[in-house]
């Protein structure tokens, strides 16, 4: 029986979940939830997830949110190849360490740059002070440095010789500020090389397909109806500014 995946591919963790499901041929049905249209607040989605966040998974009666939890659940349930979440406890711990760290690091900083650089000025039409933008980029630089120097070091992937859940969760986050026009890979040969390896392991076609929407962001905001985000404007500004 197929699992239902509630996704919006503009959201980084939705992309990691979809890539994982597709690359492992996990039987799944995608239910699109448009965050821009506030669909996460609809009645139907409320029945799936009280937490009202995407990605969300429904497997029979079992509903789950939070991408690390979903990825781990799918890996276990569908007995995916071991390298995604190895049995070796130390390698596994390295992955858990990354999955924990990234919430308040790359994920937070990359999202912030995406919103401050693109969405807030172009869609909400609110000016972002230069210092705030610079500070956000500095924070992201710090996280990217730690990704390279602590989590990758001399290894091809975060947990060692093979791609794992950690790399998947990392790459989708790094793509977000890129989509806003920030050159995250410029001057970072190590990050570049890792990105190439991750893309090759995922398959360029799948990687590009899943990132198509987000990478079209700079174009899309030109024609986007800003009023769609009015309902969450205060919350967004409160959070990022």
């Amino acid at each position, binding site marked *: 029986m197929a699992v239902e995946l509630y996704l919006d591919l503009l959201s980084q963790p939705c992309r990691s979940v979809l890539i994982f499901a597709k690359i492992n041929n996990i039987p799944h049905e995608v239910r699109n939830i448009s965050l821009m249209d506030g669909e996460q607040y609809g009645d139907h989605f409320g029945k799936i997830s009280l937490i009202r966040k995407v990605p969300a998974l429904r497997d029979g009666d079992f509903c789950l949110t*939070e991408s690390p*939890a979903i990825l781990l*659940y799918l890996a276990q349930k569908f007995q995916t190849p071991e390298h995604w979440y190895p049995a070796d406890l130390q390698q*596994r*711990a390295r992955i858990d360490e990354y*999955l924990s760290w990234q*919430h*308040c690091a790359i994920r937070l900083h990359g999202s912030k740059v995406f919103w401050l650089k693109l969405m807030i000025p172009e869609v909400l039409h609110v000016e972002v002070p230069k210092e705030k933008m610079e500070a956000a980029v500095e924070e992201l630089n710090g996280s990217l440095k*730690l990704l390279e120097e*602590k989590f990758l070091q001399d290894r091809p992937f975060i947990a060692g010789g093979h791609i794992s859940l950690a790399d998947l969760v990392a790459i989708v986050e790094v793509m977000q500020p890129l989509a806003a026009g920030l050159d995250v890979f410029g001057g970072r040969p190590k990050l570049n090389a890792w990105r190439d390896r991750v893309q090759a392991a995922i398959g360029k076609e799948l990687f590009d397909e899943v990132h198509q929407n987000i990478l079209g962001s700079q174009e899309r905001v030109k024609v986007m109806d800003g009023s769609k985000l009015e309902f969450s404007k205060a919350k967004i500004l409160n959070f990022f500014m």
Partner: protein
Amino acid sequence: MAARQALQVHLDLLSQPCRALHILLACTRLPHTVRHVALRKGEHRTPEFTEINPMQKVPVMVDNGFILTESDAIIKYLVNKYDVPDHWYPRQPERRARVDEYTAWHHTHTRPHAAKVFLLEVLLPAQTGSPVEEQHLIRALSQLQETLDQLESMFLRRQPFLCGDDITVADLLAVCELMQPEGGGRDILQDRPLLQRWKSRVRAAVGDAFDQAHAVLYALRDRRRAKL
């Protein structure tokens, strides 16, 4: 025989995730050595500590030379590696997923929102000598209220513990964060009977380990009260 334990943890009990780890170690009776790192004194920035953890944060675990940071990862590693009761981090996939779901959500909700109140009421004034920034505090308290609402409605609901019928590592991580504002004399659960009852259940489940882990926080609270 005073053997040097192969398992070492570097902790400051003023740190919420350090307390959660400390309580788990006490409850599971895993032999270990504690190395205290006084954040207040900047001991996390010494060359010796930085060599162990370049990110200069606590807790850090060293198990036979294997160094690990991030409390979730440390806690899950210990539970997976050593023979501890299954309820802490159940093997059954759906029950485990519930714990993974909470520990992820924790990073973006419980942890930052409770920590912010402590930061604004205790840490910043202590560091800068300035009075509490009231507007920021009001905002932080409001955000915390939302998180407490979500803890009650999305996780606890009618269950005894956050992830089901039995205590898990999720409850330890959560309770230690929610205790932090007590360092400033603030009981954030005072008007929340549902969460208070949950906290009592957690305390009962972990016994003396709870107050032992929180002794430093209580001492801070008592020192501040004495000054008033």
